[in-house]
């Protein structure tokens, strides 16, 4: 057994728990998980069946944690997990799984397959079998502090740009602010308007907020590759920043996995409950709306529909707020089929969009989103995740669909009257 396979096996054995054991022993090979997975439904290839993506892990479980399995192994009757096999499984575990979680919701015996894929990735990455694209993100997180190589100067540049645009100052390192705003690399690089929107919204609501120079990055590459140690490093930085600035709430940006990492896995990664709240920006906007602190003017009149980011809705529990917010500013908001917690993945989450060799597969999987859109024929598509936005745009471009994609926070902010000093 090679050193890296050894490491992978060791890590996998550490993550095995009662739920995983229960799930492997409950599977009856009904194949329903495949019908819920867009990588299967749009390609027809059975190898993308979610439970099949876990086959080496299942055998390892059997051979290490069951009496009969161990006996079998001792007698040389079981098929060992090899380095080569893990290599073969890389495509299934990374390229063809976005951790969207639909499989976990449909399995009749209750298997939480996405939970298992997430754990399997721990072993795969420890064994060195993770895609180059995500490995790069991990390396940059370790060496630079951000998976996409973003440093503080880039954040400051954006801050200045936004201040010029709206005349609202962006606070940095303000102790005692109510909200600590996190950004994802994607926003810093691709969508500076997100920060502008936050500034406008907070200004109107009269809430104090701040960025943190030591912890502005919310994107968690550790989550995607399946490396809890790395995921912990990123979360710890955020926790340290939040505690240093004594904020009440940390706002997770329009990024799916950043929310999952901080809101649901964060406390478990650092081994203690948080002393502050964590909310997705959509949750914050909804709270402000309900409190009457988010006042908008005018409505969009064209037909709009909403794409639910998987990590926000199905995996995060934020399902109704985005709808309430849409109704605030959209006269003609229509739901696509399967909207809400059963919505279909954009095809690029979980690190998938960073995998160059997975692009063709993603484009095929996009046919599902395309069919949802074809059913409602919107003029524009709204969503609340920077990665979804880009993946959607690429898919739309590939299928020659002329459909602009916008961010929800940005859209809401556009309906807040300009009052700032710059004008």
């Amino acid at each position, binding site marked *: 057994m090679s050193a890296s396979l050894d490491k992978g096996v060791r890590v996998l054995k550490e993550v095995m728990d009662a739920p995983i054991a229960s799930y492997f022993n409950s599977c009856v090979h009904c194949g329903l998980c495949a019908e819920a997975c867009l990588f299967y439904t749009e390609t027809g290839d059975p190898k993308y069946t979610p439970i099949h993506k876990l086959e080496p892990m299942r055998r390892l479980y059997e051979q290490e944690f069951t009496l009969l399995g161990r006996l079998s192994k001792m007698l040389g009757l079981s098929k060992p997990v090899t380095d080569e096999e893990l290599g073969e499984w890389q495509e299934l575990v990374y390229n063809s799984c976005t951790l969207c979680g639909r499989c976990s*919701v*449909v399995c009749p015996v209750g298997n939480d397959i996405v939970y298992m894929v997430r754990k399997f990735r721990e072993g795969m990455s420890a064994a060195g079998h993770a895609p180059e694209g995500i490995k790069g993100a991990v390396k940059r997180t370790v060496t630079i502090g951000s998976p996409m190589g973003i440093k503080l100067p880039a954040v400051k540049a954006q801050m200045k740009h936004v201040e010029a645009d709206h005349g609202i100052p962006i606070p940095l390192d303000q102790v005692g602010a109510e909200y600590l705003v996190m950004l994802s690399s994607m926003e810093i690089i691709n969508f500076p308007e997100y920060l502008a929107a936050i500034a406008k919204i907070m200004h109107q609501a009269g809430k104090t907020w701040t960025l943190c120079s030591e912890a502005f990055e919310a994107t968690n590459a550790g989550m995607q590759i399946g490396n809890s140690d790395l995921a912990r490093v990123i979360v710890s930085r955020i926790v340290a920043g939040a505690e240093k600035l004594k904020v009440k709430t940390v706002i997770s940006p329009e990024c799916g996995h950043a929310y999952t990492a901080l809101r649901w896995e964060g*406390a478990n990664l650092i081994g203690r409950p948080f002393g502050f709240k964590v909310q997705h920006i959509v949750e914050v906007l909804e709270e402000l709306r309900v409190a009457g602190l988010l006042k908008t003017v005018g409505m969009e009149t064209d037909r709009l529909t909403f794409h639910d980011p998987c990590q926000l809705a199905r995996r995060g529990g934020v399902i109704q707020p985005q709808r309430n917010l849409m109704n605030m500013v959209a006269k003609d908001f229509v739901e696509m089929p399967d909207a809400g917690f059963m919505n279909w993945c954009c095809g690029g989450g979980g690190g998938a969009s960073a995998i160059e060799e997975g692009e063709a597969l993603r484009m095929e999987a996009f046919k599902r989103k395309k069919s949802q859109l074809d059913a409602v024929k919107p003029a524009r598509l709204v969503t609340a995740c920077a990665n979804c936005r880009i993946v959607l745009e690429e898919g739309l471009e590939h299928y020659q669909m002329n459909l602009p994609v916008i961010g929800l926070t940005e859209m809401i902010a556009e309906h807040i009257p300009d009052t700032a000093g710059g004008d």
Partner: protein
Amino acid sequence: MDPLQFLTWVRGTGLNLALSILVLGVLWRLIEIYGLGRKADLSAQRDVSGASGWHTIFRRSVPAPGMLKTSPVTYIGGYVFHVGLALVVFLFAPHIKLIQSLLGVSWPGLPSQMVDFVTVVAMAAMVLVLIDRITKPVKRFLSTFGDWFTWGLTFLPLLTGWMAVHHVLLPYTLMLALHILSVELLLIFLPFTKLFHAFTVFGSRWFNGTVNGHKGVPV
């Protein structure tokens, strides 16, 4: 061994053996699985009523939105044979008598013609589900020896029981003995095959529902 001796054996020693293996096997497997434990969740819970492990145990019996039309045979065939099996096992007078002799409890049964009908329907559903497993690409791809073997283990008691009641093919005593033997095989292999889902389905649904319920998503 003549048929009567065979029948006496399966009714006595065989049954004791099978039940012992079943009970010990179930206990051992439950400990092996659930003894692994799981870490507590330290993240703040999102309270949404109706979202919990207990809810999911029941709710997961209903197909998720949009799924029924993707695989009607899986759902409908599956339900029909599961319910059919339960009805036949627990509401056929001779079975109730057996349970009474073992556990001291009894309840009214269904008329035997109804049980007969249910048995035939359950068998038909099982055949349908088998055909589906052979013809559908995903199911065929996933299927292993265990799937075919457990299908046989589950089908044989229905078939042999029906044949015994109708005095088909073999003399009654022998048919009955074979029926009881087929049930004993089912019981012996239950803890060690996918049939164990009969027990783990509750744990799995509960874990799944708990994790999602913690986030406020009713699954």
